[in-house]
Each structure stands twice: as C-alpha cells, then as structure tokens.
C-alpha cells in the first residue's frame, strides 16, 4: 500500500470539491481549511465549498519534475486566485503552455494527479482549465 493512501483519502473533500471554511466573524473564505481565520484570527469552522472559478495569478511550466511526476512533463502549475479570495496552487489542464496568461479566467476540474505504479493507487484531485473551455468545445 502506498504510504500516502490514508493521507489522500483524508483530503478527499478538498481534492474533489474544494471544501474550505467560512469565517463567521469577518466573512473571510478560507482554503485549505485551518479552523482559524488568517484574517481576523477568530475560530472559523463553518464548512464552505468554493465555486472553483478564478483567474491565473502566476504560472510556471515544469520541465524537470520531482519523482512521481516525470511522466507528465512538461506540465504547467499555477497560483489560481479564486473568486471568493483564497489562492490555490494547482496544475492547469486542457491548455497549451504557450497560451497561458496571467489574469486568464479558469475553472476547477477533477483530474488524475499521479499514479503510484502498477499496483498502487491513482490519485485524483483538482486542476484548472480555461473557463471558456466547455463553452468553446460545445460550439465546435
């Protein structure tokens, strides 16, 4: 069994649905959940699922990858600023690296993040694609 399997299972709400938290004191949206509001420092435990809509704050295309991700190179990672406020680190998908721009609207999709060999688990989670992707592909 891959040693990370329990860890991956524990994070399923965040990985599959972007489950974060809402601060009842100041209204701040929090992702990943941390149970303390980073803005007003009050307890914040009300679950809130984020929309998954946002824009690219910055990005990088990786040519030399850590172990476990070599097969996917080149791939593009980004900081995505969600419309609720939090920034998430995630891969971009369904877009050639040369077409990625800062400020580009994106939306969350669920994709394979990595595998752990023939016998191991397949890890799924959020990636982001251009927000116009679905609209454009149905018109085509």
């Amino acid at each position, binding site marked *: 069994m891959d040693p990370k399997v329990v860890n991956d299972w524990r994070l399923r709400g965040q990985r599959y649905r972007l489950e974060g938290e809402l601060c009842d004191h100041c209204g701040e949206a929090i992702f990943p959940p941390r149970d303390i509001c*980073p803005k007003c420092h009050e307890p914040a435990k009300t679950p809130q699922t984020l929309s998954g809509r946002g824009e690219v704050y910055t990005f*990088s295309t990786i040519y030399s*990858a*850590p172990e476990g991700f070599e097969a996917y190179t080149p791939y593009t990672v980004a*900081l995505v600023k969600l419309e609720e406020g*939090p920034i998430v*680190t995630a891969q971009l998908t369904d877009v050639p690296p040369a077409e990625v721009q800062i400020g580009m609207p994106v939306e969350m999709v669920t994709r394979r*993040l990595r595998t752990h060999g023939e016998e191991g688990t397949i890890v799924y989670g959020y990636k982001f694609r251009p927000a116009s992707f679905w609209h454009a592909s149905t018109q085509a």
Partner: protein
Amino acid sequence: MREVAIIGIGQTPVDEHWSAGIRHLMFDAGRAALEDANIDRVDAVYVGNMLSGEIVGQSHLGALAVDFLDLDGAEAFKVEAACASGAAALRVGYLAVASGVLDIVLALGVEKMTDTSGRETTLALAAAADAEYEVSQGISFVALNALLMRRYMHEYGWRREDFANFAVTAHANGANNPYAMFQSPITPEAYARATMIATPVGLLDASPVCDGAAAVVLAPAEYARTLNPTPVKIRASAVSMAPLAVHDRNDPLALEAAAISAHKALEQASIVREDLDFFELHDAFTIMAALSLEAAGFADRGKGVRLALDGDIALGGRIPIATMGGLKARGHPVGATGLYQVVESILQLRGLAGVNQIADAKLGMTQNIGGSGATIFTHILETMS
C-alpha cells in the same frame, strides 16, 4: 544576556563528494573549526541539516557528530528548518551561550544531497513546501520560485535577462573561492541560453544540488580573545516566520519575514543598513536575491533587479552580496548553507577573503531562508577591535 563571539571556523569544499559520507563531511568541517578555535572540547554540538533522514537514511545526527568528532561529554542534536537549518543551528548555539547555560558550542551545518538521483532529491527538497497543498500538485521547489519570478516580471515589467547579473556576479566571486562548487565565470549570454527547469527559471537562475559542511565555534565574547586572536562578535541574531505555503501569504512578492527579520537584526545591533559592508543573502534563485534586497530595504519594491543591473551588488559596489560565490556559485548544500554564509563573512571580517576581500570590512549581515520564505534568520557579525 552575554555577548557571543565566534572563535573558530571550518568548511569543506562544496562539491559532489562521492567518496565522503555525511559523517566525513561533519568531521572535516567540525575538526577544522575546533582547530581554528584552538580547543578540543565543547559543551554542545548543534547540527543544522534538512535531508539526512530522507536522502542518506540517517537520522540522529547529533549522536553521530559527537561520536565521530570524538567529543565525549558534549550534548548534541539536530536542528531542522529546511534550507535555513544551518542558521537555525547557529541560533540555538547563540541562545545557549548568550543565556549563560553553556560556554562553548559547535554549530555545524551539513548536507549530503548527491547519494540519490536528481528527481529523488528534488522530491525530498519539495518537503520544505506544503506537502498536502503544494507538493501534491507536482510542484517542485524550483517551480515555487518560478511562480514568484513570473509574477514579479509581470508586476514590475522586468525581462528574464534583467536577472542575469545576479548569477554573473555570484560566479565571478565564486571563481576566486577554492571552496566553491563552481569556480568559473559565466556570461550573460550563457545565462540567456540556459536550459529551462521551470519557466522562467533556467539552470543559471538556480543554485546547484551538492554536498558540504561548514561549522563555527561559539564562546562568550568576554573571553573569546584568550582563545583566538581574531574573534568576531555576533551583534544580532533574529528570526521571523511567514505562512508555509506561498499561496497563503497576503503578498507573495513581499517576503515579509525577511523584512521583519532584517529589521529586528538591525535594531538589535543598533545600526542602520548603510553601516553594513556586505550582505550574504540567500540567492538560491535569482528572484530570491532580488526579493531579499528589497525586503532588507536596499531597494524599493520591484527595484531589486536594478541593483544587479547597475553593479551595486559587486564587490566594489554599494552593497556587495554573495562575496564568495553565494548559493549560486559556492553551492547550496541546504542545511549547511547558513553556516557557509557565516564562515565566509568571517573570512571577510578577518581580512582573509583573498582576491574577493572587501576593503576594511567590519560589519556584515547574513540571511538564510527556509522554504520559499517561511523561516528567515538574519545574523549580524562584527570584528572585535
């Protein structure tokens, strides 16, 4: 609180040390520091290291160090703060001596990074970032810096080529340091042509994977001179923290912890930054050099790159950095780096920096960064006249 001085320094060459294990590296740097201090007994050994468990399969470095350095009777343990582990070990030693609890401490930084393949080492290094929300997305440590560099270029209008002088200056200085990993100069053209690791970070923006160890011996300043004729005083030891993940910082380009850490250090030393003769900063990537200069107040926001373009960071410039090659050319054996910075600063302050000597150097500042900016140590060192 007692004043604390450094009475001995030691370092191994930074290299791919195929024939030396982590114990040999600790031995060589530790013995050199003890010999320089003219002592053979210490009260404690604090070992700065990040990756020994992951890469070498060896934890418990404190016990190993005391055993192989033949320092029976000393207490010892490992101190870990990612790439800032070396400065963290110095900080622990400083606190021990300043408080009066201990008298003589060996702060020893060591890292062995070349016993594994490049991609395994890359994965191990990534553990300095947020494992669940950064590393799980396939991010590397290089890529985190690339995200910052891209945003910086976007916000302030710099081109990639504008960063070249950080690498060119570091290599020019490393060329005269017999302990540096890279002892050859590079050209701006070579920088521009370098292979991309994670856009816009190329091979010559990044410090190398390597092995090395560096060490200093600490003693109360009041009797430091009885042990060594040229002690150096620790005028300040400060540390500040920021959120672990880049995405959790209010302003990712601000390097807030570096600003607070440097500010606290300058205040402790009761000096202004213009008093400093040099600044050994954490140039693990060219973008980190720019952000560190801005955070410490040597340049306005978005203007750090200007200091490289104008030559202000060169040995004869307004604020020399990486005077013996920095992380880029001397190399960045992560847990040892913070102590290499201190050893090199002491060479400058003793007037032993050779061709790279800064004339009349009396005050130097070192800054060692853990992760992409989450833990930042600043130390200020001064000659004792």
